[in-house]
Structures are given as structure tokens and as C-alpha cells.
């Protein structure tokens, strides 16, 4: 499933304290700087204290890729005891790089050379010795190994040296010098080695964009999107995997004139968000499944009071405390339906880091324009996945999309219905805009009313106004990829899984199967027409997602009355491209029969 041009995936595996994650960080930033497209995802040890396995996987390509590969091309072992179980991950004719002179005495099979398969190429390096020779300590082993990689595969060392200098610029010059010395020593060694594998780094194709390219995680992109959209206030309560949004905004938002407050729990976080939204500010909070469950009642208030609010939800393994460090897509039902009553709201789910940026910013536009809460669904994988993105030169987000109050005064109707069902909005304190807001059902003036026709009319208003979101400008609510027209197998997907779906679709096409994929970004309101049109073209429809019940499959089937084939996984890890491809093949063969 390789992309054309360069497509190499590195996996660095070590113990906590070996600098595995740091090495992966330098590697991906250097490759991004050189102009390659990068997707990277790190696995941290479960324990907070210093033991445990760290894996940093970095995939670099010249053509855009959408997920990590099941098989890495190069495995670098900083600690054999953790790396040995992953040797099988390296493809045939790929490389395994390891310490050739470990300090401890090993029993038979304790060294990684005992496990390297005949089809893989072994490269033994005296990493510790080189580190000690260059820097008089063994702490720079991870940097030595990066140098070796660069030397072996002919990667321009300049980018690495720049990233190293930037990374350690806050420390003493001696630290930068030591790390540079370690890198150079590794580089010279790698250059002199006879290369036996078939891994070749081609030149990056998009050199011009290299300067504008930046590396971000999903959460980092959300933060950028918020800031570019003019976020005024953020209220948060820490929960894995959304905590970094709170932390980053706490550091960055004040520089742009905004304020961040950590609340005592999720309920007060959403309450404050809605309060700020009512006061006319752009406001948001971020949480995960358990937090969203706590926020469900308050979201109802935001719907009922037609107050804008934005909630970023990074999904993790559930239910309850679940699997806090594993990824899942099982909060869709909660996002779309959670809360009392018919409380429809906008739910968006970006599929990649670039999408996180756009969706984050657009969420504020939609919240404002349609006077409603917007829930943006990410997942742990997408939140922590690094990708190279090119941010737009101009700020793509609009402000002040409120429908303005036309004439104020005694007759002002905050909840007046109209053709587009969106009412003119007065911000508290606005002259002539006095009105009432309540969680009770109310009439157009905002005053409580339990009259039967009123409730029906208000329900209709609150639902129908959201239809316009389906046509929100400059935003992709769903998109089809792959073969045009009738196809054998169509694949629907949402969230981070769509990356793997795209890769599987490309592979299926390569095998001669007519295949098309559609990503659904707006999950509420559901783009029924487009999905139906897509399903019309497909012989059979497959819907892979990371949850047990098949939540989107149920949603689509329920909305359209048409069946889809579910492919559900709740392992806590991203779905494998090969799994999706195998299903596509099976369905294609079944159709042919």
C-alpha cells in the first residue's frame, strides 16, 4: 500500500528515558522541513513513572498519505527488550538498526539479532560507544541513531542540525553542541556503511511549500483554529486526551487577548462556555466522552436558549472511565443525541489534522450563525497524530455572522421565526435588545409558554434552522473519493478512520476493484441527500468505525432506511488498512458471484 514516490515509515522503539519520543520528534520535524509530507503517531507507556515501552512511528511520503502503514520500513531499537516483539512489523527487505555492543550480558535470544528474519537487513551500530566517544556520556544515544539514519539513507543533515539547535535553544549552548556532536558522529558512521536494504529516499516533490509547511497534532490544529477564529474565552477541565488543548490555549490565548479558566468540573466548564456565548463572546470547552456525558444537560440549555457554544470532544475508549490512553469512536450517539428532549445540535467530525484546523474555526462560525451548540468530535489517535499541514496565508474564518437585531425596543422578539428560522440576536447590553432567555419552552418573545402549537412550532424552528448548516459556505460536509459513477464497493467513514479507509480504497483500486469512499464530516444534520446519492452508486456499502455497536452505521441506516455492512472494531488501536481492504475484497467477490 505504498504511495508513489517516497514512502518510508520509521519506527523508533525504546524504554522510557531513552529519548525515543524526542528522537521521533526531531526526525519528523526535520523531514517536514525538508519538504516531505509526514504522518506520525507516538505511543507512550501507560505508567506515569519512568518504565515502559515508547514507540515513535513516523511515515514520510512525497504524495499525501492518510494513515500509518501496518509495516514499517525501518525499525530502530534503543532497547532490545521492548523492540524484539515488534521485529515482525518490519517489511521484507526493510532494515533493523540496533546496538551492537550492549553493556549487559544477555542470555540466548536476549539480543535482537536472534529475532531478525532472513528477509530483513540487520545493521549493528555501536550506538553507546559512539555517544560516549562524542559526548563522554551515553545519554545522546537517540541522537546518534538519528545521525546514523541520515548518513545511511543520504538525508541532508542540515535540517536535523537546525531542528536540534531549535529544540535545545533554551538550554546551555553546551547541550546543543553535545547533541550536534552526537548527531555528526552517528552521521559519519552511517555514511560509511554498506547499504543492503532497498529503502531509497527520493527528493521531496513540494519544495516550494516547505517553508509554509508546519507539523501539528490534531489538538494543536484545533488550538490554531480557535485562535485564528478569534476565540475570546476558553473554559476547560483536564481529561485525557483533550488536556493539551487546555494547556496550549492557556499558554497562547492570552497573547491574542483571550482568557482561559480551568473550572472545577465539566459541568461548570460548559456552563461558563454557554454563559460567555450568551454574552456575545466566541467561547469553547474541550473534553472527552465522560465529560461530554456530564455536559449533556447544559447542552440542552444551549439548544433551548439558542445560544452559541462550541465543545471539542476527543473520544477515547469507553464506557465510563474506559481506556483513557486508547482511541475509539464511540461517543457519536452521545454527541448527536445526548441530552434531554429533541435537542438537535450541529456535530462535526474532521478526518485529518488539516480538517481539525478548519473544522475548529468553522465551528465558531456555525455556532454563531445558527445560534446553536456545535460539537466537534476528534479521537485520541487524531488528537495526537502529527501531520504536515500547510496553513492558509489569509485567515479563512469570518466573524460577526450573527443575524443582527433590526429594530429593537419593546417589540423585539429574540426568538422570532422566519424563512430561514434564524432569529435576530441581541447581545445583552445592546440598546433596545432587552429580552428573556429561559430553559423552559418559550414563545417568540422568550417568555415561558407550554402551549401545544408553540412547542411544536419551536421544535420545528430549532430543527429546521440547522438545515442551512448543510450549505454553510467554504466547508466540506461530506466528500466522495475514488472511482466516479457506479462502483462495486463503496465505503462510508468518519473521523480518523477515514485515513485508513482511503488507503484501503487506493489499494482496492490497484487490485482492479471499482471502489469509492465518502467521508461524512457533518454528522448532524446528516447530509442525507448526498449519502443517498452515494449509496445509489454503490453495489454494497461498507462502514468501518472504531466502536462496537456501529454507531454511524446505525445512524445512516436509521436516517435513510437502507442497510450498510458494518465493520466494527474496538481494540483501542486504529483500524488496520489491511482489515478494511480484506472486507472490500470479500464484498467485491461476493458481488461478482
Amino acid at each position, binding site marked *: 500500500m505504498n504511495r508513489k514516490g517516497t514512502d518510508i515509515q520509521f519506527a523508533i522503539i525504546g524504554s522510557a528515558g531513552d529519548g525515543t519520543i524526542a528522537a521521533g520528534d526531531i526526525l519528523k520535524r526535520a523531514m517536514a522541513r525538508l519538504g516531505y509530507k509526514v504522518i506520525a503517531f507516538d505511543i507512550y507507556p501507560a505508567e506515569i513513572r519512568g518504565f515502559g515501552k515508547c514507540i515513535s512511528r513516523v511515515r514520510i511520503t512525497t504524495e499525501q498519505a492518510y494513515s500509518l502503514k501496518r509495516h514499517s520500513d525501518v525499525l530502530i531499537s534503543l532497547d532490545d527488550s521492548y523492540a524484539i516483539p515488534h521485529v515482525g512489523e518490519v517489511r521484507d527487505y526493510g532494515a533493523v538498526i540496533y546496538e551492537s555492543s550492549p*553493556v*549487559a*550480558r544477555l542470555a540466548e535470544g536476549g539480543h535482537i539479532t536472534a529475532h531478525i528474519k532472513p528477509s530483513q537487513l540487520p545493521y549493528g551500530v555501536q550506538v*553507546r*560507544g559512539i555517544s*560516549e*566517544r562524542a559526548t*563522554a*556520556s*551515553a545519554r545522546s544515544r537517540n541522537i546518534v541513531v538519528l545521525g546514523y539514519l541520515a548518513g545511511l539513507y543520504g538525508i541532508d543533515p542540515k535540517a536535523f542540525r537546525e531542528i536540534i539547535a531549535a529544540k535545545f535553544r533554551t538550554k546551555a549552548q553546551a547541550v546543543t553542541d553535545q547533541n550536534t556532536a552526537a548527531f555528526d558522529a552517528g552521521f559519519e558512521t552511517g555514511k560509511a556503511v554498506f547499504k543492503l536494504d532497498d529503502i531509497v529516499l527520493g527528493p521531496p516533490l513540494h519544495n516550494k511549500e516547505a517553508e509554509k509547511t508546519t507539523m501539528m497534532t490534531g489538538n494543536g490544529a484545533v488550538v490554531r483554529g480557535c485562535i485564528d477564529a478569534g476565540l475570546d474565552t476558553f473554559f476547560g477541565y483536564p481529561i485525557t486526551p483533550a488536556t493539551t488543548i487546555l494547556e496550549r490555549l492557556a499558554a497562547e490565548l492570552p497573547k491574542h487577548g483571550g482568557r482561559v479558566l480551568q473550572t472545577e468540573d465539566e459541568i461548570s466548564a460548559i456552563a461558563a462556555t454557554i454563559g460567555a456565548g450568551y454574552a456575545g463572546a466566541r467561547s469553547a470547552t474541550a473534553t472527552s466522552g465522560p465529560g461530554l456525558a456530564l455536559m449533556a444537560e447544559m447542552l440542552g440549555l444551549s439548544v433551548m436558549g439558542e445560544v452559541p457554544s462550541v465543545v471539542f470532544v476527543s473520544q477515547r475508549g469507553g464506557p465510563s472511565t474506559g481506556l483513557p490512553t486508547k482511541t475509539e469512536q464511540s461517543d457519536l450517539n452521545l454527541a448527536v443525541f445526548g441530552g434531554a428532549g429533541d435537542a438537535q445540535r450541529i456535530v462535526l467530525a474532521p478526518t485529518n489534522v488539516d480538517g481539525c484546523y478548519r473544522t475548529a474555526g468553522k465551528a465558531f462560525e456555525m455556532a454563531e450563525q445558527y445560534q446553536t451548540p456545535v460539537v466537534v468530535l476528534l479521537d485520541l489517535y487524531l488528537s495526537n497524530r502529527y501531520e504536515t499541514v500547510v496553513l492558509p496565508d489569509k485567515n479563512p474564518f469570518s466573524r460577526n455572522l450573527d443575524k443582527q437585531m433590526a429594530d429593537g425596543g419593546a417589540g423585539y422578539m429574540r426568538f422570532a421565526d422566519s424563512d430561514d428560522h434564524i432569529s435576530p440576536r441581541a447581545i445583552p447590553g445592546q440598546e433596545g435588545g432587552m429580552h428573556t432567555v429561559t430553559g423552559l419552552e418559550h414563545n417568540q418573545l422568550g417568555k415561558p409558554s407550554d402551549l401545544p402549537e408553540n412547542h411544536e412550532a419551536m421544535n420545528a424552528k430549532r430543527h429546521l434552522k440547522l438545515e442551512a448548516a448543510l450549505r454553510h459556505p467554504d466547508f466540506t460536509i461530506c466528500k466522495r473519493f475514488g472511482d466516479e459513477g457506479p462502483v462495486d464497493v463503496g465505503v462510508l467513514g468518519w473521523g480518523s478512520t477515514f485515513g485508513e479507509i482511503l488507503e484501503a480504497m487506493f489499494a482496492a483500486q490497484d487490485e482492479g476493484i471499482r471502489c469509492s469512499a465518502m467521508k461524512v464530516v457533518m454528522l448532524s444534520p446528516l447530509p442525507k441527500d448526498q449519502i443517498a446519492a452515494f449509496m445509489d452508486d454503490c453495489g454494497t456499502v461498507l462502514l468501518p468505525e472504531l466502536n462496537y455497536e456501529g454507531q454511524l452505521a446505525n445512524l445512516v441506516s436509521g436516517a435513510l432506511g437502507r442497510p450498510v455492512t458494518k465493520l466494527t472494531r474496538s481494540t483501542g488501536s486504529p483500524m488496520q488498512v489491511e482489515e478494511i481492504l480484506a472486507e472490500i475484497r470479500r464484498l467485491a467477490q461476493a458481488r461478482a458471484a
Partner: protein
Amino acid sequence: MIVTVTLNPSLDLTYGLEESALGEVEVHRARTASVEASGKGVNVSLTLHRAGTPTVAVLLLAGRTGVEIGNGPGQTPLARLRKDYDAVLLSTGSMAAVKLPLKEGEGRDDPTSIKGVEYGLNFLMELHRGEKKKVGKRVAVVGAGFTALDCARVAKRLGAEEVTIHIRTAEEYIPVTKDEIFEAKREGIRIKGLRTPVELLVDENGALHGVEFAQNRLGGWRDNGRRQAIAIEGSEFTEPCDTLLIAIGQRTINDYLDVKLELDRWGSVKAAEGGKTSVDGVFAAGDFVSGPTTIISAIGNGRHVANGIDHWLMGRQRRRQMVRIEPVEGPLRERAFDFIESQHMPTATLAKRAGKLTCEVETGYSEELAGTESKRCYLCNLKYQIDVDNCIYCRACIEVAPKNCIKLVEGVEIREDGTYGELQETRQWDEVGAIWIDNNECIRCGACFMVCPTKCISITRNEFVTQDL
């Protein structure tokens, strides 16, 4: 009359340079050289004498006095020395060559009676005394020690076309350093193994023209790490040569003794602690007792026996060897020194060596190389020790250890003589009694010392010193 006593006289070697040589930066050649007796008291007497004042210089002399000890005519018997002196020290070394064990044929009893055959050590000593030695075209050297190597390399320089060293076992077992063997091979000398000479082949003029060898196979192990060589029946073969240098070892001769001293099983005089022989007042030291060893061993043994003689003469021990232990503030070296490769001794090129007996092969280290090489000093007289009472078991030392030198132990064996024996290592934390530095593995890098948060690792310098009692 002024009497000067010089207890440590010396010889002054004076080189004369031209006056104009001073101040110019280049290599100068000495024009004159002279040797004179000297030493503090001697110099005083010399000055007094030149000034006309009567003076006598008293000094200790060593060296040959021209007196032959033995039992023949004109020789002084040992008994005379024993009568005239309180103690006699025999240190006549191992100056006789070991006989070549030929099976049969000419020269069986005295191989050197054949033209072209010499004992290796005698050959070298005569050469160094200034005699013009000659070798033929094809030289065979029998023997596996440094003397054999020296003979071979000298023979090459004297113009032999082909020089071969024949050894009884294999290269693996010969007691010569690898460097020496390498240089010899570089000079074109060949080493052939698994053969023992059995007969010398002589032509009609009585000159050597070949050596017959028996093929060997390797037998059992001998005490000194060497192998037995067992000749194979009927495996004889010939190697042509016109010169044979025999360097299979030296032995002691004690036929000059006129008193029966107890001998050991090799026929050398048996010497106990302090050099005592079985006869009171007669001591023996050096190669004369042990057979051929090294200069270092001989000097050491000589000193040791001197203490023994003094002890016997004075009736009590007046000097003893102690261990001095001093604390040291730091590792005294940098970690980076551990990665300095051994400096290869620069050697003269083959072209420079060819045919010249006076070309020094090892040209010596330059000041820079010498400085670098000295940084590699292991400082093995330093001992690193963890004070178990202050250790907090943080394991920081184990983490920085470059080798498997710091271990978790349940306990350490203490031997009868008080020394530490085996470490009882463990991997279970609840069994750990101490964190222990294994001084057999320690490379004195100092990393543990630098990182210990409670400073519980101490470094001591341990030296042998001689103390007068």
C-alpha cells in the same frame, strides 16, 4: 688528608659538542665522548687533587674482578669465599645453552662442531661484542622464544635470503608477543610449526646442508600453558639449509660448586624463602635458581634475596613491604580517556631496516603520542568502593556504569585470608544486601563517583611501600 666516601659512585659519560652548536636549532653530532668515574665524593676528591690537596676517595665498586670460581687449576674454590666472607650469593644465571636433542648422525653430541651450526645466544653475544658474524643463504632457526626471533631477524639483516623459524608446537603456544611475530613476518621470516629436528645433514666438506625433522602432533597441556609435542612415527622430512641457529633455551650450570647443595627436580640449586640454600651462608638468586626468566623477575628476586641475606646476617627483619592506602579526591582521569586507542609504536620502514643491524626498528613515541598513550593509564592502583552504610540504593551508579561492573549482591564471600571472594549476585530487590563494585570489572572511569547523590563511593590509592623497621 681528606677522605671522601662515595656510597653511590657513577660513571659520567660526556659528549663534546662544538661551541658553535649552541643556539642553533638542528641535529648536532657529538665530536668526542669520554667516560669517567664520578659521584659526589669522587668529584670532591678530584677537585681537591687538582688543587693539590692530598685526598683519598673511597667508593664501592661492582663488576668483574677477573677472579674465576671453580675447582680447576688457577680457579678459586667456593670454600675459600665461604671462609673469607660471612655470606656468599650465587647469581651466575643460566648461561649455558640447552643441548639440541638430536636422535643420531653427525654432531649429535656437539652440534656446533658442524660448520654452519651455532648456539643462538652465543651467536648474538659474539655479534654484540663486535665480532663479524656470517650466515649462509638459507638459515634455519630452531626455537620458539625471543632469542630465536632475534636470531632470525639478525640473520636476515646479515644477508640471508631465506630465514625460517622451526617450532615444535604451533604459533598459538610460543611465548613471544604478537607484535614481535608480526614484525618478523613483515621482514620476510617464516614460521613453520609441528616439527622437531632429529638429524643434521652434512655434505662431503663437513658443512651443513639440511636438517631432518620429524612431524609432530600436539599432545597434552603442560603446566606453563604450553603443549606437548609428540613426534609421529616414520614422518621424517628434510628442510634444506646452510646455517642452523639453535635457540631452544638456556640452562644453569653449577659444576663450579664444591659443596653439595640441594637441587630441585630440574637440577638447579634449590632456594627457599629469602634465597637460602641448604648450606648456611650460601644464598642463590635470579636465573641461577629459576632458570631463564626476565630481567624484571631477576631484579625483583635479587632485591628480595638481599633482604633475606640481611635478615639472616642481622638476626632480624629490618625491612618489610606494606600496603599504603591513601584517599584520593577524584577519579584523576576523564571518561573520554577510555576511548583512546592503544598507540601503535611507530616502526622504521622495511626499506630503512634492510641489512642494517643498527637501525632501531621501534622508533619510539613522539611527545604527543607518548602523552596520549599515558592517558590510557588504567590507574589500577585506585580502588573504588561503595560505603554500604551510606548507600541509598538509588541505582544511579548502575545506570551510568559502562560495563557490568556494579552489581546487586546478596553478599560477598570472605576468604580465610580476609580477601573478598565470589559475589553472590541477585536480581530480586528483596534479597539485595548491597550494591557492590566488582573491582575485577571496574575500569576506573569515575562515572559512578560523579553521579552518586550521597557521595558514598570512595576512591583510594593502594601502593606497595618498603618500610624500614
